């Protein structure tokens, strides 16, 4: 039997099955990345020009009050020791207290993160639903008017400042046409009407069967989500197009045609199946980019998410909040990467 069995021999000799080694290696690389990420953020937090002690005790505080606060924050210890304590706390799920409102940073993040998730998820969904078919059609009908449109869509998406597009959207659809709700997650009369279960108002209002809140929340989210969606549409459609072009010139496509398959079956059953893996990576990347793009979008739309949380914290030297927020976003980045690696293994038989 000429079946190629590559790892059969190695399996018998190695002390551990290969998947354990792979898993360990993955975990190790995550740990190193996260540690490095925390270290960089930590150093940035330490060299901030605004004095966090002053931010707590105020300009008029006496020397002894200042020193007490200084020691309480642990700033008298060497930086590496401080970092060690910080990592220790983070591992126990403690990001410290916000210097501004004295609440645990973890609670703040729990509150703001779902808002960003809601926005980015809706955005990336729009990007996938429109971008993937657009990219496929553009590749299959290369040079057609649809391909030209896809090209323009992508070019404009790559060239437009997101915060400006948000402003223009607000101006046109809210200010002039009045089609959508304005800034914020819900109108002022709907704030805290539905109990927070997931922290995502669209889902919470469905759970509560409060359709009025749902409608209002939807009218608020639709514009910022569309704007984020446009960016992921630009990226996803361009990448889909290029992946599909590569596959459509492959020899197995000729085989499928020789079999007598219809062109649509050739495209979707054969070619598309082969780009799934690459597409997953692109979507994960696009999602991560949206979390980032939401920083500016959230500010334009007064969206109480992690982006505006980090920005506000930065501008007021709230070190713990900045560190916590950045570490969480970084963690999501890393997790998305691992997630797409895992799916890679599921969908590509060659990766096993």
């Amino acid at each position, binding site marked *: 039997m000429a079946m190629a069995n590559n790892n059969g021999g190695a399996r018998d000799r190695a002390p551990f099955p290969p998947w354990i080694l792979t898993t360990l290696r993955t975990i190790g*690389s995550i740990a*190193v*990345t996260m540690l*490095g*990420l925390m270290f*960089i*953020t930590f150093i*940035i*937090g330490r*060299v*901030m*020009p605004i004095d966090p002690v002053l931010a707590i005790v105020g300009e008029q505080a006496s020397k002894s009050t200042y020193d007490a606060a200084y020691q309480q924050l642990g700033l008298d210890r060497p930086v590496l020791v401080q970092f060690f304590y910080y990592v220790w706390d983070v591992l126990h799920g403690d990001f410290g207290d916000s210097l501004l409102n004295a609440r645990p940073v973890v609670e703040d993040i729990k509150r703001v993160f779902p808002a960003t998730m809601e926005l980015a998820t809706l955005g990336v969904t729009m990007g996938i639903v429109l971008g993937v078919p657009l990219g496929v059609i553009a590749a299959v009908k290369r040079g057609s008017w649809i391909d030209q449109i896809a090209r323009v869509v992508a*070019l*404009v998406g*790559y*060239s*437009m*400042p*997101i*915060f*400006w597009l948000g*402003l*223009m959207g*607000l*101006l046109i659809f809210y*200010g002039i046409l009045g089609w959508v709700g304005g800034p914020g997650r819900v109108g002022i009369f709907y704030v805290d009407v539905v109990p927070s279960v997931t922290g995502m108002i669209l889902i919470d209002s469905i759970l509560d069967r409060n359709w009025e809140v749902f409608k209002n929340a939807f009218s608020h989210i639709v514009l910022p989500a569309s704007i984020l969606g446009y960016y992921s549409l630009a990226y996803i459609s361009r990448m889909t*197009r*290029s992946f599909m*072009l590569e596959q459509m010139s492959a020899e197995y496509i000729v085989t499928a045609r020789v079999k007598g398959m219809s062109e649509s079956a050739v495209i979707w059953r054969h070619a598309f199946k082969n780009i799934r893996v690459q597409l997953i990576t692109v979507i994960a990347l696009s999602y*991560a980019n949206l*979390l*980032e*793009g939401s*920083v*500016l979008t959230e*500010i*334009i739309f007064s969206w109480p998410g992690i982006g505006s949380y*980090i*920005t506000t914290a*930065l*501008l007021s*030297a709230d070190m713990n909040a*900045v560190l916590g*927020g*950045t570490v969480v*976003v*970084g963690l999501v*980045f*890393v997790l998305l*990467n691992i997630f797409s690696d895992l799916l890679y293994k599921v969908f590509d038989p060659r990766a096993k």
Partner: protein
Amino acid sequence: MSETQNLRAWLLTDTPTSRRHAKYAAAYQGWLSFRSNTMAMIGLWILIFLVFVAVAAPLLAPHDPFEQTLSNRLQGLNSDGHILGTDSLGRDILSRLIYGSRITLFIVGLVALIAPITGLLVGTVAGYVGGWTDTVLMRITDIFLAFPRLVLALAFVAALGAGIENAVLAISLTAWPPYARMARAETLTIRSSDYISAIQLQGAGPMRIITKHIWPLCISSLIVRVTLDMAGIILAAAGLGFLGLGAQPPSPEWGAMISEGRRFILDSWWVATVPGLAIFTVSLAFNLLGDGLRDVLDPKDAEK
């Protein structure tokens, strides 16, 4: 006339007579194929125009970009001598836009120097030396890649203090890792090729191999990448300016101008709209130019 004909023929020859001849001929033929790409030429012209505007700003600007006339604030388009209106302090928007082009070019130019060179150094060293150096350098690169770019830039500017130079540093800091990866990948393929072994046998040292043989081969893909990155750099700089972390008032930075106009968006829409259009046009021009350059310099990646 016949002189130019001769030059053309000389440049289009299939059989170059010297190394320099071949180089010029290749450049000319690249230019010919670039020139036939209308979109790329449009991008190039926009950028030439931008440079011209930046250089000739004092001659072109109808008003002093810093002169405030509070009685004349938020004037609409084309109102007494202000073609693009005035902002909330009564400054002429067109003049500010013209002077702002200098800031944009300054930022883009500096980042386009710092980031690729850093990346090239890190990448080629990692790729050429290999072993532990490679592992450590690439780990660091990965850590920077794991960061959301804008958040990192934000944090950096906040730590170093707001201002245009720090914005440049922060953007460079977030922009170099992809170059490092690219340069490393190229170095790895080049290093294992036969002609490198050949010059090694002739006694060439690592410095000579890296600077004379590896860098020149990385350059073309680097240029393409830089051009395509410029749009991103402009957007990032504008984003920092918008957050108040880039150029400080009263400097006419385009992102900061949008931020200022944001407060009046519903009543005086042009204040925020016009600088946004300027940012859009310039980054579009860089994207068009980059696409065209890629087709000429990096044909294997073309049509993607």
